[in-house]
């Protein structure tokens, strides 16, 4: 039994090492000077742990500041839109009986199966013909119009809200819009939290959509800015490392702060 227990911990520590080692070496590299990086191995700790020059370079020359700004703008608009679209559609589908209900549900369901990268060939033409190319609206529109899993999360949640609440509000003279806005949406807060977390992380990490539709440097988001580090900083791994860490840091903070929600959210999102 003791051997089994030791093996168990050994395997866990091994997994921990495999996960952390590739990241930790970047932490070591990010604090090194250029000469220091060139003359030391990946496991050598930096001489000066307070050398933040590389972070400054990544932030200013690498355009990370602008990138975080662009990503934030897109996140705020797209998340607000996703919440409204998902909850409205879920409310309509759950609380009303109408002729094409099954068709509508089917349309949303099928859309989650389409891997968006396969249809980019045609999506590109849609974006350009709507003149959204090289604007932040291209990413926002695509986040709102593809893989709308938020409707499932809201629907599951709205199904659990007793209809008596709607009916009570209706007797008090509320129309359907105020039932949606004052009864359903406020009660959906946990579902909103789930959507914000899983969609927020997905949007923050999205690379190909901004890469393809927003090539303008002023519109670069976090992913595309980091991608561009590959060119000018080709072999300057100390700067690239700093950039990578800057990108990971917000994710780490959000994860540490919201662990419980994140586990539950991704479980709900994947199993739909």
């Amino acid at each position, binding site marked *: 039994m003791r051997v089994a227990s030791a093996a168990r911990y050994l395997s*866990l520590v091994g997994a921990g090492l495999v996960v952390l080692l590739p990241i930790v070496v970047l932490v070591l590299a990010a604090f090194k000077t250029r000469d220091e990086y060139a003359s030391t191995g990946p496991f050598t700790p930096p001489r000066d742990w307070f050398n933040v020059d590389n972070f400054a370079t990544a932030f200013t020359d690498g355009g990370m500041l602008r990138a975080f700004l662009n990503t934030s703008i897109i996140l705020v608009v797209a998340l607000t839109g996703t919440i409204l679209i998902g909850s409205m559609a879920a409310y309509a589908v759950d609380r009303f009986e*109408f002729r094409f209900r*099954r068709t509508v549900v089917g349309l949303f369901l099928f859309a989650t199966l389409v*891997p968006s990268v396969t249809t980019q060939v*045609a999506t590109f033409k849609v974006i350009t013909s709507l003149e959204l190319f090289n604007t932040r609206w291209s990413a926002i529109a695509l986040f709102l119009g593809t893989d709308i899993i938020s409707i*499932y999360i809201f629907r599951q949640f709205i199904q659990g809200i007793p209809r008596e609440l709607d009916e009570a509000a209706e007797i008090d003279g509320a129309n359907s819009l105020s039932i949606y806005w004052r009864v359903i949406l406020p009660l959906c807060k946990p579902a909103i939290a789930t959507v914000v977390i899983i969609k927020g992380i997905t949007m923050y990490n999205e690379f190909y959509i901004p890469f393809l539709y927003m090539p303008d440097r002023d519109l670069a988001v976090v992913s*595309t800015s980091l991608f561009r580090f590959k060119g000018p900083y080709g072999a300057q791994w100390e700067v690239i490392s700093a950039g990578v860490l800057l990108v990971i840091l917000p994710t780490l903070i959000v994860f540490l702060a919201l662990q419980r929600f994140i*586990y539950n959210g991704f479980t709900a999102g994947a199993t739909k």
Partner: protein
Amino acid sequence: MASPPRTEDRATAPMTASPTAPPRRRRGTLLRTATPYLYLLVPLAFLVVFTYVPVVNIGWYSLTSWDGLAPTKTFVGFDNYVEIATRPELLAVFRTSLYYLGASVVQIVLALYFATILSFDVRFRNLFKGIIFFPYLVNGVAIAMIFLYFFQPGGTLDSTLQAVGLEDLSRQWLGDAGTVNYSLAGTSVWRFLGLNFVLFLGAIQSIPGQLYEAAELDGATRWHQFRYLILPGIRPVVGLSVILAISGSLSVFEIPWIMTAGANESATFVIQTVDFAFKFRKYGLASAMAVVLLVLILLVTWVQRRVVPDEKVDLS
């Protein structure tokens, strides 16, 4: 996935309950009929324009020889599909998917193992859970950079091998056609293991605790508990993971595209499709490839629905 449609009686209930006077009822019902559509107007508009128009359009483009620029598209029938079927090198990239499929098997087995041991009492349980899951949240470009550094000559991997005296194993991890796909598939395991793991962990924890106690009283070993209690209990989630793994392996894109751009035989079907469209300006052929992939993925999903019927998999 979708919950079964409700019974009709629910729909009429609020109508009969509404105390509107007879003259106003006509207007009331008309508004009532229109209401759900008003809510669906914006969501459906986005869905149709950005998902369904592209899907229909790749179908149409795939029957043309369009270059993506010309104002007119020449109809060529099924020529593009014939080309895909008769040029072996166009389908050969699916071989790359096999590496990722193999990696998914490793990934699911590892996820099952870690989910099982972490569902029992273990010290630092939450810490290990967090460490194993975290990579799934990390930005894909950051992951690509992390592993470019990891695999580069003299990088993390080579230095580790050197530290344990295995430096003879060092090679061009990303530059050698013989190893590049293993390296990239390994990166993919590092990235996606966490999702499988958390899904399994959630499912295992929803198995009632008394069952384990009963099993222990009957003298069941840990292996027996896993084999006869845990595995059947989480079957739907394992089924779902297998399907996600298959469709994921078919549509691998981001990591190899950023890390190697498909060089050294690491191209995947999606990389090839994107290259044909945006690099070689063969929209027609690229669209046909996209259709092939879409059909394959829908087929896999359909098989899943058949094999694993709509069992309730919501175990969170």
